[in-house]
């Protein structure tokens, strides 16, 4: 549906372009890409220390532009836009990276956000005190239930990013568990631990530098 709309608007643009400048053969590339990604590990659990589950302490870096995981050797570059470790999400900016990135949490649905509102303020990371995307329960993108010990993304939260290079992207986190399926509340603790810290999300990336997500 969305893809066809993008193609549709691209076609329309083509017609308009052709109408205006008949002499040149324009190269029109749709600048908005929309993808769904799953299975992004975020410092998955390797064991228990003093009874608390721990990972290796490593972030997984991701680029919206290439829709791919960026090797951690490139962590000090603008090749990545966002990185995840447990429930902490960092942006390539502030004290987290050399880029100009930042983010804020928009309340609404993914489709509601058709453009970045004019008065938006992109927050920057000041790790470990504060993050552009708050990393505590019920204040940013997720809620932790002490009863079921499960982490659930809050519905109606869209993370709006400024990328490392100053472009815009929006993200809806869909799930925090392996295979995009949250374990049952009655699953064993081991099951809940083993399968957590795998992000599924969808994003829209605007490559033309505008704030439009249409």
């Amino acid at each position, binding site marked *: 549906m969305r893809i066809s709309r993008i193609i549709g608007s691209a076609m329309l643009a083509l017609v308009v372009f052709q109408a205006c400048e008949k002499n040149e053969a324009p190269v029109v590339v749709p600048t908005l890409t929309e993808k769904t990604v799953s299975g992004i590990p975020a410092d998955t659990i390797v064991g*228990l220390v*003093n*009874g608390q589950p721990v990972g290796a302490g490593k972030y997984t870096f991701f680029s919206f532009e290439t829709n791919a995981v960026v090797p951690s050797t490139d962590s000090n570059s603008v090749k990545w836009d966002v990185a995840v470790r447990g429930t902490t999400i960092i942006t390539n900016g502030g004290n987290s990276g050399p880029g100009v990135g930042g983010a804020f949490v928009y*309340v609404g*649905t*993914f489709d509601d956000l058709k453009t970045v509102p004019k008065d938006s303020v992109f927050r920057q990371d000041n790790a470990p005190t504060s993050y552009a995307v708050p990393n*505590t329960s019920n204040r940013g993108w*997720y*809620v932790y*239930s*002490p*009863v*079921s010990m*499960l982490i*659930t*993304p*809050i*519905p*109606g*939260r869209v993370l709006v990013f400024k990328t490392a290079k100053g472009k815009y992207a929006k993200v*809806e986190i*869909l*799930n925090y568990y392996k295979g*995009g399926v*949250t374990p049952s*509340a*009655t699953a064993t*603790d081991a099951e809940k631990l083993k399968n957590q810290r795998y992000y*599924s999300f*969808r994003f829209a990336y605007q490559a033309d530098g505008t704030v439009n997500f249409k």
Partner: protein
Amino acid sequence: MRVFFQTLFLLMTTVSFAQRGTDSSKINLDEVVVTATRTPRSMGNIAIPVSVVSSKTLYQSGSLRLNDILAEQTGIQVIDNFGKGIQVQGLSSEYTLILIDGEPLIGRTAGVLDLSKITVKNIRKIEIVKGPSSSLYGSEAMGGVINIITDRAGQNKTDLGLRYGRFNTVDGNLNFSKRINKTDLAASLNYNQSKGYSLKPNAVQKTVEPFRRSTQNLSIHQQLGKQWKAGASFRANTSHIDNTIFVQNLGTTIASKGFEKNEEYNLTPYLQFNKEQKIKSILRGYITGFNALQQLNVKNATGGYDDRFRQLFARVENQTDWQMNAHAAFTAGAGIVRETVRSNRYDTASTLRTNTIAYFFAQHEQKISSKLTWIGGLRFDANQAYASVWSPKIAFQYKPSDKVKLNVSYGRGFKAPDFRQLYLNFTNVAAGAYSVFGSEVAVSELKRLSTAQLLDQTTALAGNLSALKPEVSGGLNAGIVYNLDASSQFTANIFRNDLKNMIVTDVIAFKKNGGQIYSYFNLKRALTRGIELGAQQKIGQLIQLNTGYQYLYTADKDVLQSIKNGEVFQRSLTSGQAYRMNRSDYGGLPNRSRHTANLKFNAENAKGYFSTIRIIYRSRWGTSDLDGNGLINRADEYARGHVQVNTSIGLPLNSHWKFMAGIDNLFNYKDIQFLPGNPGRRAYLDIQFIF
């Protein structure tokens, strides 16, 4: 299903050999009830929703504890959380007042008064009043009042009962009452135990741990001349629950063993004056205490868990009833309450927390014509530890004919902030170092942490810290009672309760170590509304049919507003994507079933042979949020609705020996996750000897 037909067959055979009895085929409308107006009134003349459970129903239902019988009443739901609490008109246990012989029971945990502490084997009857009655009873009488009337003095009857059932359930009971000249004596003893059970096969930890409980009652009443009467009753109740908790830590299982012990006692002396049926004045004292002790010890380790809670409630009250003339009656009363709590949950176990309440109430009942009566009441509670509160109530009854009764009433109810909300001083060292401070200690605790440089920042709410107000409700009830003929009755009642100033916890500050600090605020607003329907039908001399249904809608009003504003979202189970929530998706407050119903058959002959089948239905109810919005909305956030069937049969041998047997939960319905208090099918055998 096969079992069902067997039971039906059992019922039929019981009926077929039953003979024509002397038992009336009429529905009793003249039952005298005291709870609704604090004065004895026949049920047909009460303008608010009221029902009575008789000792006969209690016996024939095979009930042991108060939750057993209340679970079978229309519009009442037993919820298993911190013990067996009840929900009336959609209001949870903390908003329902439980009285024993007119005096309030204390000993709530997280607002829930565990009904399984209360034996029904010594109960004469239970009166249930729905809707707010704070105008008469003060705090907690919001959703309803359950009054357990135990006193059998003057019955001149002694009986001994013994019950054995599944899970090694043993219940022994002795009731004694005797009239000697002008003195009435009554005593009862009850012992109840079970070895507990595990719902999950091969589980190391039991779902319900072994427990034993005992109750002792003693009452004496002395007529002093024509006008004066004095007496006292004493009741003591203890329960002991084994506790074995297994904690998985670093791959090893650590067992901690301990127990939970609850003791409760109450003493009620009184002096009563009566003059020519015109003036009745009673001076009552009431002292009740609740001591809870919970200890857990880990093997080969020091320390362990130790929780102590001691509550004392003392009250002196006078109530005077004045029958002015044939059309008007006036009641007034006043009293003083002093409450104290010592607990290491708040501070050290030696710190004493107190509250003093002074109150008065008045009620006037006026018969305007033979058809129309109104009754108005008002109560004022002045509290030391929190804001004072007025509770008015007005009710009208209109009887257009002998068969029809129309009732309308409106009242305000309130619940006082409890000691936990006022004085809790709790810091969890293990999980995130969060703290919870009661409203009365929060400001000083914040100051202390700030001085010690432990505070990171405070939230806007911290500036709103002030004395907690009581939670209040307004309740409207409008109903009809229609007596088609002497053997059939229909009732309907529409209700609505609007609650505000409901107390919730919220974050007031963050500590430098990341821990959050919570305190209590009067923030939440909610509503419950619904309709309750009931029908009774006698069929011949032997069979009685009772049926009831309740439709219930509940909501957090702020959530409704947010839904209206388009600020509430939910997540699809299939795509994982979020979308906006509609009002129809909102499942309301948790633990509420939209539909509840019951159908009860009872057959009894003149010789006392009886058989009952009680079918109880409860539709799905919200349990906990799974899609991150904190609300009940998605289908997987509900527990399954179900039907439970209970049955019993009674075989009196002669005037001394009575046998009965029964099966509760005949079809063995279980829900391991959401009904841990339901162990499945339970059969029992009960013998009673009457002296």
